[in-house]
């Protein structure tokens, strides 16, 4: 049990997919304009990660080594399709906001990376918690980035105006703002890490 908790918590800080592994930056850069988008993307990716890690770890002994990547892609695409249709049915606004980036979870490096690096070598309970931890870590990173960008870029968080008279810094709503925020946060976390060691 202790091991499982460790598999879960490592994805949040020690091996955070966005800030430590630097994986899945494309959706991070693209959808982190607002917190709502960030949470939606995070939940969708977490669902896909959970499902794919679980199934890959269950069928890892049957998959021939040479064609393992196509097999993973098929498994991942299944879960992405489920997530996409659910989103279309229950939250069409979010679906429109995220657009092409939901289907693109299929090629998200975090999902494929965990399947290739972890799920194909570990049993299903460990893979499940690993996927959950990575998904939560990814979601938290997205929320952090998108909160900074939404606040600076439009003066709002989740659509609520925080400070009256705040002049929005438009650049943070643009792609260049995403790169700036991610770069500065990466630097900040590296400083924290260096101070610690």
């Amino acid at each position, binding site marked *: 049990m202790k091991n499982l908790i460790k598999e879960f918590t490592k994805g949040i800080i020690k091996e955070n997919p966005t800030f430590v592994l630097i994986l899945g930056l494309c959706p991070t850069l693209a959808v982190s304009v607002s917190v709502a988008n960030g949470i939606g993307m995070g939940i969708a990716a977490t669902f896909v990660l959970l499902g794919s890690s679980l199934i890959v770890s269950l069928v890892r002994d049957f998959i021939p080594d040479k064609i393992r990547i196509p097999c993973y892609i098929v498994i991942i695409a299944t879960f992405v399709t489920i997530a996409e249709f659910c989103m279309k049915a229950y939250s069409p606004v979010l679906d429109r906001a995220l657009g092409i980036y939901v289907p693109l979870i299929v090629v998200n490096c975090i999902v494929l990376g965990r399947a290739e690096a972890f799920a194909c070598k570990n049993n299903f309970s460990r893979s499940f918690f690993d996927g959950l931890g990575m998904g939560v870590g990814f979601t938290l990173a997205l929320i952090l980035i998108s909160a900074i960008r939404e606040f600076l870029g439009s003066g709002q968080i989740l659509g609520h105006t925080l400070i009256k008279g705040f*002049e929005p*810094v*438009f*650049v*943070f709503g*643009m792609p*260049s703002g995403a790169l*700036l925020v991610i770069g500065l946060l990466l*630097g900040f976390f590296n400083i924290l890490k260096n101070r610690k060691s």
Partner: protein
Amino acid sequence: MKDNLIVSGSPHIHKKGSISNIMWAVVISVIPAGIAGVIIFGLDALWVTIAAVIAAVLTELVLEAWAGKKITVFDGSAVITGILLAFNLPPNVPLWLPVIGAVFSIAIGKQVFGGIGQNIFNPALVGRVFLMASWPKYMTIFVKPFDALTGATPLAALKEGKILEHISYLDLFLGKRGGCIGEVCILALLIGAAFLLIRGHLSWHIPASYIFTTAVFTYIFGAAQLFHGDWLFHILSGGLILGALFMATDYVATPLTAKGQLIFGVGCGLLTAVIRIWGGYPEGVSYAILMMNGATPFIDRYTRIRIYGTK
């Protein structure tokens, strides 16, 4: 006598130059343009400049103290960054704008890369482009000289296809037009550049090739008919002279060799002309210089000087 007999490796001839020496000389050289800006636009221009300089120096001081690095505030490089940033702003902006711009210039444009000598882009232009992208409504309103009315700059008027109302070349040369604080008075800028040129802190390669290329391209493509463009107007308006003399000649982010500097200048001129004639913005000097700053490592790589005696 004994003191003069120093045995050491080369170089044996020393010049009493230092970073702070050069930087303060540049500060002195931009003072005429600043005075001209204050005369033309009133005291607002002075407050904007002072706010930018103070913010730049304080940011540098705080960040270097926080990172535990050597404090280099007194070498004048932060001062010149603040001044050049303010020179690229309209005179009637709210005072928090130059402050935020200067903080961004120093923090993101310079200290993130490791401080003086490490930045890959001109810090003042990084700050200006950040402000331009963030608060375009403040960055594109210009007051007309000697009165409080706002109006378009000559280049913006040209872009919108309006006929230019009685602006003579002499007015442009002396700065009687709407524009940014430091860019309007060409005469003052030339005086400052002459001072630097005489002191040997400025080489002619980048400014000459930059201005010449812009002139040639705006002459060829600047009008509906080929070879009918108003090249003199393009040279005298906008930030071309300020950019070519003081921004594109930044020591850190430009090529090292004369050949490389000529390539750099031609590239800047080409990009400026392209943005002005076909681009979405009326002015392209800052983007042109920043793009060529990005290309500098490649230029340096392909214009390396042959070491004597090698092939």
